[in-house]
């Protein structure tokens, strides 16, 4: 799980163009949206694409997104349980 969390931090920084943010700046339980990393709605869509492209997970119900994308920990947990690649 630790390896997956670090992988996710790197991918998020790259995909979302988080300039001046390093993996070490993101704590596992930091909020990704709002007060945390300050991601926006377009970033949320990019994360949905990332889940599909890299882990074969299609999020069909947007209502689940809020809980899944709460933090690196929640993302990693969901991916490890549902990944198809």
């Amino acid at each position, binding site marked *: 799980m630790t390896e997956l969390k670090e992988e996710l931090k790197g991918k998020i920084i790259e995909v*979302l*163009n*988080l*300039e*001046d943010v390093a993996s070490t700046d993101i704590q596992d339980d930091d909020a990704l949206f709002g007060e945390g990393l*300050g991601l926006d709605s*377009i*970033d949320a*869509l*990019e994360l949905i*694409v990332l889940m*599909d*492209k890299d882990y074969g997970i299609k999020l069909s119900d947007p209502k689940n997104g809020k809980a899944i994308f709460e933090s690196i920990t929640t993302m990693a947990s969901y991916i490890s349980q549902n990944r198809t690649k």
Partner: protein
Amino acid sequence: MFYIEKSCAIQHQQVLVDGQLVTHEPDLEFSEFVKKSFRSLAIDYPKFYKMDGLSKLAFLTAEYLLKGSASGNVALVLANQSGSMDSDLKHIRSIQDPDNFFPSPATFVYTLANICAGEISIRHGLKTENVFFVDQQFPTELVYTYTSYLLQSNRAQKVLCGWVEYFQDNYRAILYLVGREGTQVHSVGNIELLF
């Protein structure tokens, strides 16, 4: 009578404000050049890094003209030659392979040329008239006439006008701010001198 109060040109790895050289980075490609120029302005605005090339160019050029001013009622009259073609092509490339079909939402939102006007408006809190023309070259007389109308009719206190062209790392931005104070009269001849 109206005046060209200020101008900014960004091209050939140079930033010129009112004709005075502010930055020259001859060894930097566009992405590094605009990033360095942006950082030199010491603005806390992370969204800049997520913009496409056209919006970065427009945002940065406008920043030199509007930063620190009470910009409230500034209309935007912009033009370029390639529209949003650079982002359009990036988006098309991402949807050509049915087996690898992953369009990027962050790219897709920039597949309209006037999004760059939106980025300027968001940054400076503008809720004003704006228009974006796509033409082979800067339509000087059209922009002059429309700008004069906006000011004469009090639809805007000032108008940010100009050319902002970006396609595959070739870029040229020449923006100028037209208002009610200054020494350089707003005229077709004086606009042409900026280009």
